[in-house]
């Protein structure tokens, strides 16, 4: 079962590599060198996480209602979003 799952995930990673090739981002996915599934180069994986965090933090700071729509534009919600932004 684990082997089948690894094969499926590796094939998905290879497909993504091919899909990303025109954008010169194929190096992000190195399924063979990492031995199978969930195989992103560790340094690139950390960079992806950093980029996601920066985007989320900026969004929380500049567009609070996008992150926590439930609270609206109240000062309480703005405060919650500041802390979210600082953490991200």
């Amino acid at each position, binding site marked *: 079962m684990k082997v089948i799952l690894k094969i499926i995930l590796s094939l998905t990673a290879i497909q993504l590599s091919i899909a990303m090739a025109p954008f010169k981002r194929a190096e992000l996915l190195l399924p063979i060198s990492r031995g199978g599934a969930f195989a992103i180069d560790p340094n690139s*994986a*950390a*960079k*992806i996480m950093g980029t996601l965090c920066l985007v989320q933090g900026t969004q929380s700071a500049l567009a609070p209602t996008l992150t*926590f729509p*439930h609270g609206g534009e109240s000062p309480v919600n703005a*405060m919650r979003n500041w802390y979210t932004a*600082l*953490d991200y």
Partner: protein
Amino acid sequence: MGISIYGLIFKGYDLKVSAAINSLLWIADCLSSLLNNESETLGPTKAGDISFLTFNAAVAYSALNNLPWFGTAFKANALLTFVSSLSCMISPSFGIKFWGVKGDDDSTAYMSLIGDHLFTRGVLMNSLAWGIDPLTAVGYGSATASILHVRNGFFNSDVEKLGIDKRAYSFWAVSCAVVATSILV
């Protein structure tokens, strides 16, 4: 987390640089809260703001002046982040009282979410403070974030009432899991 990763992984800067930038942001927030007397209207308490201000000021000052006690200041700030996250994450209602957060009926759910964010940041900071290399520290942070996103996104009834988009939560949980696996396994 984003600034730490940008400084340490993208740019290869010293830990002091990313720690100083992070702490300066917290200092600005604490000063804004204190000067606008937000403890009366929004929270946290003045004691809470002053404690965060003090620990972050120590980190920023020691980092910017390249002082030998930077490591101690950074460890202390990492522990403060970790401890304050536990009070919000494990018992949000206690966290609301402890930090003097004013709000509405949804505050419990929000405290739980903010506790998760702080906890993840605490894991990253403590890993870096105790000498783990930045890449592995990001892996630990991502693994923590993945678990906590699953917990709050799918097993927390308070958060469910907020109507937070589960697709966005799933996206974060999966992304963090992939990053953590790529780094740690």
